[in-house]
């Protein structure tokens, strides 16, 4: 299942405090209000994030979900990862190693980490119990 809608990648500034968070939100607001927005926030540059920054991320996620879109985080710096883990918000976002992984994830039905490898079925599993060889572990 593929999507033709564009994916917007935005880089979060180094310091995400109250002032910066407001400026960033004003910047992304038009994209958040589009129809079914698909967004990726690249957090690789983040060196400092406070509660206002986390709140801004949650606000963006809520706005995007309201419009049936999705917001994913990519390339978390160690600092941002620690703050997100500390504030228990890391479990609310899909987080990817890189922005390209996050962008690609929009064109797939399931995120890569949820994908299961194809199941390989052995012939014996199709055989009815009576036809199984006597040395089988399922034999009576």
């Amino acid at each position, binding site marked *: 299942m593929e999507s033709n809608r564009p994916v917007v990648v935005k880089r979060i500034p180094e310091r995400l405090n109250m002032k910066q968070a407001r400026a960033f939100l004003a910047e992304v607001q038009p994209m958040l209000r589009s129809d079914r927005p698909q967004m990726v926030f690249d957090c690789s540059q983040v060196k*400092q994030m*406070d*509660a206002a920054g986390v709140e801004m991320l949650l606000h963006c996620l809520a706005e995007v979900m309201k419009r049936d879109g999705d917001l994913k985080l990519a390339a978390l710096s*160690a*600092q941002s*990862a620690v703050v997100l883990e*500390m*504030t*228990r918000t890391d479990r609310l976002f899909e987080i990817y190693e890189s922005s390209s992984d996050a962008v690609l994830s929009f064109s797939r039905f399931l995120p890569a980490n949820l994908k299961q490898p194809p199941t390989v079925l052995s012939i014996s599993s199709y055989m009815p119990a009576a036809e199984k060889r006597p040395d089988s572990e399922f034999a009576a």
Partner: protein
Amino acid sequence: MDLNAIVVVEEGTGDSPCEALSGNAPAFCEVLGRPVLHRILQDLRRQGVGAMRVISEKPAPPLPVHSSFDASQIQFTTAPQPWRAAESECADLMQANPDAVLVLRLGPYVEIDVDALLQHHFDNPYHVTGTKTPAGERLDVFVVSASRRNDAVYMFRHQLREFRSECGTYVFRGYWNPLRTARDLRALAIDALLQRNRIVPDGHEVRPGVWLGAGARIERGARVLAPVYLGARSRVRRNAVVTRCSVLEHHATVESGSVVENSTVLPYAAIGAGLDIANSVVGNRRLVHLVRNVEVEITDPKLLDAVAQSSSWRTLGRAAALAGFLPAQFIRGVLAKSRRPSAQLPAAVNTPSPALKTPAAFQAPAAAEAARFPSKWS
């Protein structure tokens, strides 16, 4: 046997995580309610060491008034050039004609067996005996024969790196911790809680594995799971959880709803409400995550804050918080919508639930209606 000791507390470069977190030399860091330095002094006194001189660049934390060990003959000296001061203090101690002088540089936490070290020193023909771990790491614990004053002076002039004559080696097989990083500080606290070293938490064991310092407060609804140490005047607010060998040093605070797991909260650190602190050392508005191996400075007081060190400032702060809280609550109470039950409620309660009526399928008219359901294909 008469043994005196010189303890030189080395100031670090200031950039190690251990120092950045506590703002002190590693030897002054508190572990389970007491500085590492005090624990080493107590251990030496317990093993019969007499006069002790502690030399440091910055003032050492004072011994508590009601110390659990005999603090007499322990003298603290602050000097801008600690090695020079150590040299003169050592000469002073040697004039009292002890059998030997023990010299320690802190740094590391070492649980030295003084008797075994002295025995090794006197069994071998060296004037100075140093200690090493079985892996060959130097521990900066030395014994100098008291009659060898020049050897001692030479040692101090070269900051314990060079010796006038050949130095003997004692292989130390006891417990030691290098105390270089936040991970080491955490490891020392865990080992103490699990009784792997001689450190005894400063407080009372109220339940097996749960140690409380004087004035520690656990509010209703909070959960504290052993092994855990809550230092003097620490606070665990409502619905907070402290678990898995976590340590709250004195005056540390965990606000409501937060979870502290396998972490150390250093003195005067306050953790905000509703946070998850796991595998970390927190203090001085910094957090070192031991799994991610990263140090993060957090300036937002909603996440990490510092409690005022002065008791009067703390009292003023609480009074201001209360003064701000009461008017806000009053206004909220006046402006809040009334929750008085509506007059129709008893009637509504007496009406039987629609679920208790006869099911629609058993009602003849309803069944007939269903039979006549219009279909666009019919």
